[in-house]
């Protein structure tokens, strides 16, 4: 409710300022006071909102430098030790869990991105009868709570008699990643300029040449985005993993299990390193995209 009122107040400010610029014929004097309020309230709120969103991240980063003994709850002084000796705790249990998460994420991403991209191309480019039921089949996993997906797969593995290990985790992760890959790549396929493929055909390219030399390179940014999304989803997944992992540990599962006896600072180190790596990746992507947009603007 308070959000609505604030947004409304700001909206008022926006309206006013634009009107004053265009045509000041509707007595801006009384309203001018509201401009001030609206113009300040929302930026201040935004800054506070970001502080709130980022507090736990900063906490996690800071406590990766804590000179803790076993559990990492109270501040005991600054040290680089945990960053330098990440794998030295509990016989390397954190690192083993982390390595498992990376392997699972990579394998699930490769399979899900391949299968999902194929489906996305077929959905946009071809008409066929079962279209709407296929779309539903791909949409439903995203609308199903993870606990149901996890329990369902676990019930199936139990019924068939498949023991839970790394493979069952990968099978589970691939399933929910496919839907997200389809959604991401579909948007890219739909926005392709058909004239480019036509040009390829006009130059006597065979269908496979046109696909691999024209269509596929144009799809790469979408496929890459989908792959990153799948990896992130798989890497951070806990709920589905918990039902299908048996005794295999992943990074989130390690945190869940050790939460009752206290998380070692080494877990913070790994999470912080992953965070910083992802942040750099996103910033590089954004900057290169902005640079490319600028170059294109200069050309035209």
């Amino acid at each position: 409710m308070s959000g609505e009122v604030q947004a409304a107040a700001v909206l008022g400010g926006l309206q006013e300022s634009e009107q004053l610029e265009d045509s000041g014929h509707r007595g801006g004097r009384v309203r001018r006071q509201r401009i001030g309020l609206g113009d300040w309230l929302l930026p201040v709120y935004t800054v506070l909102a970001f502080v709130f969103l980022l507090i736990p991240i900063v906490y996690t980063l800071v406590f990766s430098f804590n000179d803790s003994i076993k559990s990492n709850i109270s501040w005991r002084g600054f040290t680089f030790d945990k960053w330098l000796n990440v794998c030295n705790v509990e016989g390397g249990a954190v690192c083993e869990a982390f390595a498992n998460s990376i392997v699972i994420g990579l394998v699930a991403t490769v399979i899900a991105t391949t299968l999902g991209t194929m489906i996305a191309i077929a959905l946009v480019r071809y008409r066929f009868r079962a279209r709407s039921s296929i779309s539903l089949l791909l949409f439903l996993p995203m609308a199903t709570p993870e606990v149901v997906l996890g329990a369902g797969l676990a019930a199936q593995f139990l019924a068939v008699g498949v023991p839970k290990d790394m493979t069952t985790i990968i099978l589970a992760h691939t399933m929910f990643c496919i839907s997200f890959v389809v959604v991401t790549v579909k948007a890219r396929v739909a926005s392709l300029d058909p004239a480019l493929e036509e040009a390829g055909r006009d130059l006597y390219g065979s269908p496979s040449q046109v696909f691999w030399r024209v269509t596929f390179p144009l799809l790469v940014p979408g496929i890459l985005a989908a792959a990153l999304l799948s990896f992130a989803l798989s890497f951070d997944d806990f709920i589905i993993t918990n039902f299908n992992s048996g005794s295999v540990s992943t990074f989130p599962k390690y945190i869940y299990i050790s939460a009752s006896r206290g998380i070692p600072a080494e877990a913070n180190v790994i999470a912080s390193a992953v965070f910083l790596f992802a942040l750099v990746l996103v910033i590089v992507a954004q900057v290169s995209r902005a640079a490319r947009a600028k170059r294109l603007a200069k050309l035209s």
Partner: protein
Amino acid sequence: MAFAAFATTEAQPQAPKRKSRIALFLLLPGILYMVLFFLTPLISLILTSLQAPNEFGDIGVYDYAFNWQNYVTVVQEYWPHILRSFGYALVATVLALAFSYPLAYFIGVKARRWPLLQSVMLVLVIAPFFISFLLRTLAWKQLLSDESFIITSLKALSLMAPDAHFTGTPAAVIFGLTYNFIPFMTLPLYTTLERLDLRYLEAGSDLYANPFTVFRKVTIPLSMPGIVAGTLLTFIPAAGDYVNASRDFLGGPDTQMMGNVIEANFLVLLNYPAAAALSIILMAAILVLVGIYVRRSGTEDLL
């Protein structure tokens, strides 16, 4: 139907046949995968939910049956958890919407003039995704524990009773759910608000609507697709979540949700039929609620 098919084959004898074969080749592996690992698990979940205990009474061994009483039993035993799940998820969704709307409005509308600022803020919105959500939730647990700076200050200021706790209460679980799903709410809101044509708002105020009326009658309806997508992306995972409500995280013995009892029944008590029945109830309730919600908000074409 038959005639139309005939007409196309006559016009282009080769192309459609070959194309449909390519489509089949592209679709088959992925669709087969989804049938095997999404659809049949749902069916085996339904079958499991109807199983009866093994006649020799072995723990964790069940026989296929049509034991629909399982559903009655779990509702009788776990109705507080069922109500709690949907209640907490509903409150968290409303709070996340109230928190995210002004934020998304600033990023999507007010910051349009500064593309760099806009992309920096978007990175900040998704930044929480880059760090394990379990660790973020545990960070809040420490930051809001009884000995923490925030809680001791609140007690010193008499804003909180001296013997009161925050962690382990329903408020803490709702707080955690809200925090964890804010990015899921903010991003779709941003996407629709970013495309909002400001001339509609101008038209509203030109017709002498006050700012609040413009907001209510123009901005909100135009951002409805974002509101619906955001609330669904928040409500569905929140209703099934069991991390926030877990005793080792923000919850306590009286805050357990459906996810917690499904996990306990499946992984600890090995009572698979009860866990499966609860999962089916959760999924069915969500599908019904989402169906009603999407129909009433008039955004069916979103699905």
